[in-house]
Each structure stands twice: as structure tokens, then as C-alpha cells.
């Protein structure tokens, strides 16, 4: 068990390292560097910068160093001082810009994840137990459509309907009076009132997928020999169902928690953009469109970090619920 935890931990660290390299490459990808774009802006402003000044600036910023040194200092600044670079677009440190908006992204991602499981598990189990019933067919049809609708399209449709029925925009996460207010219980309540639309948008496809997974793994378990053996002991159907197949089917569900988180995080930016939420989505898109690469790279890194940590946590949870893994190596 200790070995399992250790190996997963090492894997997590290695993945983080790999992701940071990718983020760094992304930052370096657009032609030209920070100094170039600075020179460009100065040029446009009518105060061109001299070559000497430019070289000076490069030297100060370390842009004349070979890439692995630059990477090293980028990473060490980040790890040691929480410094993720400077956002040209916002004229503020990347960490501050992201820090402002990250909590909302996380609130959105985790409430979506939570609701997805809350809805999908009972429906999946019910569909498995009543396989081929009308309800089962209904849910699987709905699931197909849910899976086939891209998030942003669903967002557009909901926004259109909201406009049509309520005559108001369902975008955003706060009513105007709370928009810039400091945090308070009222603001939290207001947030929750607004959160459900993006949660639906972000969670529909994932829920549909999860229902399928739960249904399939429950069906799988229902066919197992030990279920018949337990029935032969005289258990009532309901107790049997909850105690054995459902409990067993939870394992693959927990094991894929990390993936689901990846999926939700992956979809978050686009939903944020479409519904103009004050979260990291629009921030990310604008940084990409303007090639504000330290910010973009930082965002990619953060998005990845959450899923990697999520995967690690789901591995740990799996130890809790599955004795077979707990016993490994004993």
C-alpha cells in the first residue's frame, strides 16, 4: 500500500514536470519574445527603442540565456516565490491575475463534478436494474443527445431560451448589484443562484457519459457469480443490490474521478467564454488571442495541475474503498 501511494506520488511529480515543460514550450512558441513585443509597442507609440536598450532589457530579463536556463529560472521562480511571470496584457504578475479568477473556476468545476456524480450514480444504477425498461431507454436516448451536444451549443441554446422566457441574460455569475461587491453571504447566495446554468452546460455531457459508465459497470457486476451466491444466501434484492454490485461498481467510478475532473476542467474555459463568466475562461481565451503567453502558459499549467492532483486524490480514494489495492505488496 505504501508502495502504491509512493509510486502514484512519484508519477504525479513526474507528470507535473512534464506539463511544466509543455507550458514552457507554449510560452516560447510564438515567434519573437517579450522584448520584441515591447519594442513593437514602443515603435507604435512613436518612441522607438534602441538596439542597445533592447539588448540590455533582454539581458536583464534573462532572455539571452539558453532555453534550459530560462526554463529553470521560470520553474524555480514559480516554485520558490509563486512568481509565474508577467502579463503584458494586464500589466500585472500572472499569479495575481489568475488568483483573482481561479476561485470561481474551481467553484464551477467542483460543483459540476459533485452534481454529475449525484445525478448519474442513482440513474445509472436504476437503468441497470431496470435494463431495457422505458425509463432505461429514455435515459439512454437523452444521454446520446447530451453526449452529442457541444457545451458551447448547449450554452447558446440555454441563453437563447433564457432570453426568450425570462427576458434577461442568463450569462454571468452575479446580478449587477453583486458584480463588484466584496464577498458576503448574500454574494455567495447570488453566486449559487447563477451557477446552475453553467453547471448544466458543463455537466450535461459528462453526466450522460457517467450514467453510461455506472450502468455498464453495474450490469457487469450484476452478472457476476458472487451476486448469485449472495442471492442464494437469502438476501433481499434491495439489500443485495446496495451491498454488492453497487458497492463494487463504485470502484471504477472512483478510479475515473481524475479523468472526469480533467474533462470538466477541459470544458470550463469555453463555457466561461460563451457565458462571459468572470472566471478564468475569458482570461485564457484573451491571453491566447493576444499571445500573452506567460499568462496562457500559466493557465495551461494550472488547469493541468488540478487534474493531476485530482487523479492522485482519486487514486488515494481507491485505496480506501478497494481492499485488493490496499493489500498489494503485503
Amino acid at each position, binding site marked *: 500500500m505504501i508502495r502504491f501511494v509512493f509510486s502514484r506520488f512519484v508519477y504525479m511529480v513526474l*507528470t507535473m514536470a*512534464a*506539463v511544466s515543460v*509543455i507550458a514552457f514550450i*507554449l510560452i516560447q*512558441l*510564438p*515567434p519573437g519574445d517579450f522584448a520584441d513585443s515591447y519594442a513593437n509597442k514602443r515603435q507604435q507609440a512613436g518612441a522607438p527603442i534602441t538596439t542597445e536598450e533592447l539588448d540590455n532589457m533582454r539581458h536583464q530579463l534573462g532572455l539571452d540565456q539558453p532555453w534550459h536556463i530560462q526554463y529553470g529560472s521560470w520553474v524555480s521562480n514559480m516554485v520558490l516565490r509563486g512568481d509565474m511571470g508577467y502579463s503584458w496584457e494586464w500589466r500585472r504578475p500572472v499569479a495575481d491575475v489568475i488568483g483573482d479568477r481561479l476561485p470561481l473556476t474551481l467553484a464551477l468545476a467542483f460543483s459540476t463534478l459533485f452534481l454529475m456524480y449525484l445525478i448519474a450514480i442513482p440513474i445509472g444504477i436504476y437503468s441497470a436494474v431496470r435494463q431495457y425498461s422505458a425509463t432505461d431507454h429514455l435515459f439512454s436516448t437523452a444521454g*446520446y*443527445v447530451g*453526449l*452529442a*451536444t*457541444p*457545451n*458551447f*451549443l448547449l450554452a*447558446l*441554446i440555454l*441563453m*437563447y431560451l433564457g*432570453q*426568450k422566457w425570462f427576458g434577461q*441574460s442568463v*450569462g454571468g455569475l452575479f446580478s449587477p448589484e453583486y458584480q463588484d461587491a466584496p464577498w458576503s453571504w448574500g454574494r455567495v447566495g447570488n453566486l449559487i443562484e447563477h451557477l446552475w446554468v453553467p453547471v448544466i452546460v458543463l455537466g450535461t455531457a459528462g453526466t450522460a457519459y457517467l450514467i453510461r459508465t455506472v450502468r455498464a459497470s453495474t450490469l457487469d457486476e450484476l*452478472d457476476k457469480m458472487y451476486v448469485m451466491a449472495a442471492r442464494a444466501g437469502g438476501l433481499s434484492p434491495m439489500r443485495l443490490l446496495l451491498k454488492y454490485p453497487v458497492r463494487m461498481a463504485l470502484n471504477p467510478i472512483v478510479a475515473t474521478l*481524475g*479523468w472526469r475532473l*480533467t*474533462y470538466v*476542467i*477541459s*470544458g470550463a*474555459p*469555453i463555457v466561461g*467564454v*460563451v457565458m462571459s463568466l468572470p472566471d478564468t475562461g475569458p482570461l*485564457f*481565451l484573451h491571453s*491566447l*488571442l493576444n*499571445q500573452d503567453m506567460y499568462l*496562457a*502558459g500559466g*493557465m*495551461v499549467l494550472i*488547469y*493541468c495541475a488540478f*487534474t*493531476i492532483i485530482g*487523479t492522485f486524490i482519486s487514486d488515494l480514494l481507491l485505496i480506501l474503498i478497494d481492499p485488493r489495492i490496499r493489500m498489494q505488496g503485503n
Partner: protein
Amino acid sequence: MTSPVLAIPKLKKSNRRPEMATQWQLMWWKFKKHHMALVGMIMLSLLVFSAVFAEILSPEIPTERNNKYLASGPMGIHFFDSEWNFHLRPFVYSRSTKRDPVTLRKIAVVDETKLWPIEFFVTGSPYKFWGLVETDIHFFGAKGGFVHLFGTDSLGRDVFSRSLYATRISLSVGLVGVTFAFILGAIIGGIAGYFGGIIDNLIMRLIEFIRSIPTLPLWLALSAALPREWSSLQVYLAITVILAMIGWTHLARTVRSKLLALREEDFTVAARLSGCTDMRIILRHLLPAFMSYMIVDVTIAFPEILLAETSLSFLGLGLREPAESWGVLLFAAQNVRSISHMPWLLIPGLFIIVAVLAFNFVGDGMRDAADPYSK
């Protein structure tokens, strides 16, 4: 629970013995049992048909602007006129232009006194079919006027025609993307499965890694890094390559595991014992078993790529005008204001849903069929 049961009655009905049925036949029987898969097949065929014949099927060419019908809604096709007279030839009501007294903008209004009959194989704007054959025949059109089945966008372009053209581009992005993914997956999975050992291990780690990071932000970032001055063809190719990176991992896994399993499988041994040459073993036995799994994975990868392309283009980071894909069309519907004025701009979204649905249905049918002897 028991395996051979399902395939057998089918065999009996067509009076065949199992040993005479080839792998492909068994798969087809199994596939046919899956009604949704057949429905999916039909939907796909329709989409492919309209992609192939987009120019002919559309009443207009997609760049054409209709100044008399700007930003206006779908025109209904009728058989009965306002006095309930039946017309054998369907028609649309004519439209006339007026100025809005307040905004002073030109708006189109329905004029029920005049009918524009729908005719088939009419002459219209000239175009080159697939860029080769010059012609001006359109499958249908309204005599004396125009017909916009899905309405027009703010420039007066026909949404129906543009959707058909976009179907061609979107499906082709999917097709090219899947082909790239297929090649990539087959090579990488093949290397892993063939060499095994440490190389296999490394590749599997890589796949696990790719699958554990949120891909969409990564692809967004990659496409944002494409040089702005690239032509739309270059962007098109670059985007398909980027999208192919989404799909290859599944395929690689399948290739690898099948390769590993097939090497050991009984029927290879049996075939070898009975004196088949290697080539014959591969063609007669390995390939069908192998291909069926690959096809399943392709039907899974295809919609993934479609959805990703749509999302990228929708955000303005994928294909851009003048290239037209479903995502590009939806780009126009990006904000609440435009969709509340022109909800018909969302219609291209239906094409996406239908396409992905069709692929998922077919994919499910294929999955069952790939294992003709499974449950």
C-alpha cells in the same frame, strides 16, 4: 452469460453453418440487429451525400449576399396558400422590402399575395462543382424570387447553403484528422506492440500522460500559436494535425493490445499448424479481427475530432472565414444579442448534433459487431 447463443439463430435463418460465415458476415448480421446503428448509418449517408453534392443541393452559393433579405428568418415551404387552396407544386410566399420607420433599416416583409413556386433543377448562380466542372444548375430554387430555408445571416448569405458547404469542410476535417490519428496511432501502437518491453512501457506511459491532462486548453493554446499570416489551407492542415493528436491515443492502445494478444491467440497457432503462410494468416485471420476493432475506434475518434474542431473554430482559434465549417458558422452566433435576433443562426449546430449522434450510434453497433460472439 453464454456466448455463442446470439449469433446462431441468424445463421440458421439464412441457412448457413457457422464455419461457412466469414468474420465480416457475422459482424454485419450483428450490426443489423442494432437498429440505432442502422439509423445512424442512414443519417451519416445523408450527411455525406449533402457534403459531396453541396454545390448542387444549395440554392445559392455561400458567398452570395441577398440585399433584399438581410438577417431574416427561415422561409417556410407551403402547399396551401392563405385561402387554403392546394398547390401541387410547393411554394414560398414572396417577400418585399420596406424601411423600418424607426431604425430606417431595410427589412423584408411577407407578401402573401404573390407566390414563388419551388422548381427543381433550376439555373442560378454559376459555380464550379468540386472546383472542376463549371455549371449553374441548382437542385431547387424559387421561380421569380429566392428561397432561404434556414434564413440568412447579417450579410444576407443563405444559411442553408452555407451549412451544406460547411458539412463538406467539417466532415473532411474529421476525415483527414482521423486519418492522421489512425496513421499516428497505428505506427506508435505498432511500435509498442511489436517491440514490447521498455519501449512499450514508455509509450504506454506517454499515452497515460496525454490522457490525464486537460486537452482542450492545450489544443487551444497550440492553435493560438499558429502564425497569423498563414493561408486558410495552411491553417486547415495545421488544425487537422492538432486535432489528430486528440484521437490517436485510443487507436494506439487498441493496435498495441491487439497486436500483443493476436500473437498469442489460438487461431494464429492453429492456422500456422495447418500450414498457412504468414501472409495468409495475416490476411484471412488477423486483419478482419484487427480491422473491426480499429473501425470501432475510428467511430469513436471521429466525433471527438468533429466536436473539437467545432469548438476551436467557434472560439475563433480554428478555421476562419472564408473557410466554412459548422464551428465557423456558429462563430456568428457567439453572443446573446445575435442569437436573440437571429436564432436560426444556431441551425448549423443541429448538423453537429446529428453527425455526432450518428457516429455514436454506428460506433455502438460496431462495438457489438466487432465481437460477433459476445453478448
